[in-house]
């Protein structure tokens, strides 16, 4: 997906010649990313300061609190300062990694985030590898046999699972395979990440056991998108002359597919996978909530049900920045993978 913002620096880069093209492209992308991150920072501030009116009232949640206590809270969270000072203060702190104190846990938000991050990375990483592989594999198969029964089944199933709410699928999997239903015994834990008390290899197995259902849920709701995108990109290459040439020189059908069509088709898929990271974040939040996985998504749910505004704000900044940074990295790697872009 080449947006205008992408193609403008690219066309300039072409004129500049090969030597300086890539550094310029990188500079343009990095500049754009910095602006985007600043926009996230500003949004994070105003979203949580202006709209709710009085954060202290929200914080105390309608409990009867004396005026002295309110003033104390205001001072503690820096809410008695003028808005402009609050903003500069917030920017300075956020840039140095200080995201404020959680109302709920009375610990720094950044500590809660770094604590939960590895768990989320474990869950998301495992699911990401599986759904990308599965989606690409099925997508290529599907496109190669476009219109046949297999393709129809594949696309139909992918579209259906894509329409299923991830949290609902998770709940059903817990009922069937966690709690057990009828003849099916409860095979997997219903939530959490570990049973506790295990060590060494047994601990690894225990975590893997807890990982099964959340990963299945995430893969089921996410692979459809990769499948459809891969299918479209392969279909785009199907009519190409170079495939006719490859066939004309006598290559077997699956060699034509593996060596010629797929490498070209995979490149757009790679970018789209990154552009769609925002959706994956949504899936992770819901799946972690349903399975009580002690990651960032579960933390987000705990924060929003209070509502613990500093924690919601901190996680908002974190998720948004992470997605923007991942997207920028994908943009930077893309021209290296595909010489047709950016050079």
């Amino acid at each position, binding site marked *: 997906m080449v*947006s*205008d*913002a992408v193609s403008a620096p690219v066309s300039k880069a072409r004129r500049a010649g090969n030597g300086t093209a890539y550094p310029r492209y990188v500079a343009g992308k990095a500049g*754009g990313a910095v*602006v*985007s991150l600043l*926009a*996230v920072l500003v949004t994070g501030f105003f*979203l*949580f300061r202006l*709209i*709710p009116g009085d954060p202290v009232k*929200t914080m105390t949640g309608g409990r009867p609190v004396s005026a002295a206590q309110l003033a104390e809270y205001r001072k503690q969270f820096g809410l008695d300062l003028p808005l402009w000072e609050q903003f500069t203060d917030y920017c300075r702190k956020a840039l140095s990694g200080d995201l404020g104190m959680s109302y709920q846990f009375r610990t720094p938000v950044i500590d809660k985030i770094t604590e939960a991050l590895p768990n989320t990375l474990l869950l998301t990483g495992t699911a990401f590898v599986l759904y990308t592989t599965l989606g690409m594999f099925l997508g290529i198969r599907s496109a190669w046999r476009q219109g046949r029964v297999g393709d129809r089944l594949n696309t139909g199933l992918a*579209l*259906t699972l*894509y*329409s*299923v*709410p991830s*949290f*609902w*699928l998770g*709940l*059903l999997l*817990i*009922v*069937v395979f966690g*709690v*057990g*239903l009828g003849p099916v015994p409860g095979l997997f834990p*219903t939530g959490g990440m570990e049973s506790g008390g295990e060590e060494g290899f047994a601990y690894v197995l225990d975590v893997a056991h807890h990982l099964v259902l959340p990963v299945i849920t995430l893969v089921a709701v996410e692979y459809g998108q990769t499948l459809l995108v891969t299918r*479209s990109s392969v*279909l*785009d290459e199907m009519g190409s002359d170079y495939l006719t040439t490859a066939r004309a020189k006598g290559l077997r059908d699956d060699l034509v597919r593996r060596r010629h069509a797929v490498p070209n088709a995979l490149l757009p898929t790679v970018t789209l996978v990154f*552009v769609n*990271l*925002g*959706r994956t*974040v*949504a899936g992770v*939040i*819901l799946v972690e*909530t*349903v399975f009580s996985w002690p990651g960032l998504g579960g933390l*987000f*749910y705990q924060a*929003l*049900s209070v*509502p613990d*505004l500093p924690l*919601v*704000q901190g*996680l*908002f900044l974190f*998720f*948004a920045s992470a*997605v*923007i940074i991942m*997207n920028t990295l994908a943009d930077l790697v893309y021209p290296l993978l595909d010489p047709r872009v950016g050079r």
Partner: protein
Amino acid sequence: MTTEAGTAGSRALARQRRRRSAVRFWRAYRTHGAGLLGLGALALFTLVALTAPLTVGSDVAGVTDAPGRPLQAPSGEFPLGTDQFGRNLLGLVVWGSRVSLLVGLLAAVLSVAIGAVVGITAGHFKGAYATVLMRITDWFLVMPTLVLAIALATVMSRSLGTVVLAIGVTSWPTTARLVRAQTLTVESRPYIERAKALGGGHWHVMTRHVLPNVTPLILAQTTLMISSSVLAEATLAFLGLGDPTVISWGGLLQDAREAGAVSAGDWWYLVPPGIAIALVALAFTLCGRAVESVLNPRLEVAR
């Protein structure tokens, strides 16, 4: 021939053309089996939602005087069982369709309206305005939509309006991009130059020439957007960010979870709302894809 007669004649001509293209559209749509299936399912759901006051009535949601005992399994009397207050689940699912469909529809309309305005103006007025607008669109495009919607819904009061707003203002960028691309194509055609040469202003060009040409795209996009809005509404309700006083499918799932239906294995409480959400979302997706491929046979591949 007076000018007035000329305008009347051209209006009649335009109407005739529109009618003809609608007929052509329907003929092409009819060949898409999946699209027809989706359309049928939608008609059914709409009928159920509209007739709900007659079939189940609003007292189905009342927690006092509930007809059954709490958490009964499906039986002849309660085909889908009962919830933790002893309310009839079949009735609740039927009643919940009203909020789910309404919020989905309103959020999609809001989202597509923002997207269409941004897309048409960004395509029509070039220069700094368009650049800034498209940068904003790109920013919203990569943002994790749900996180933004949750943040919005958290800081605002719990109401259906909040949910509509939270979904609408976070999901418009795709529409804006598509509409802008189409606007650029339309505006490069000679008849736009003619309209400008005859003194047509910005408003005239945008509403009389660009808008009719992007309308099919907007319709297809709305159909697809309702599907994701229904899902988003269910998600927000499930996370407890919806209006707690109304019954919706996502809210039912949240109730089920809070009532311990998951650990007790009360599958009948969980299955129907989820299936309803999935079916509606799927039906709108099927319709949207059919409309898309009728309007632009290459779109399905090119996207």
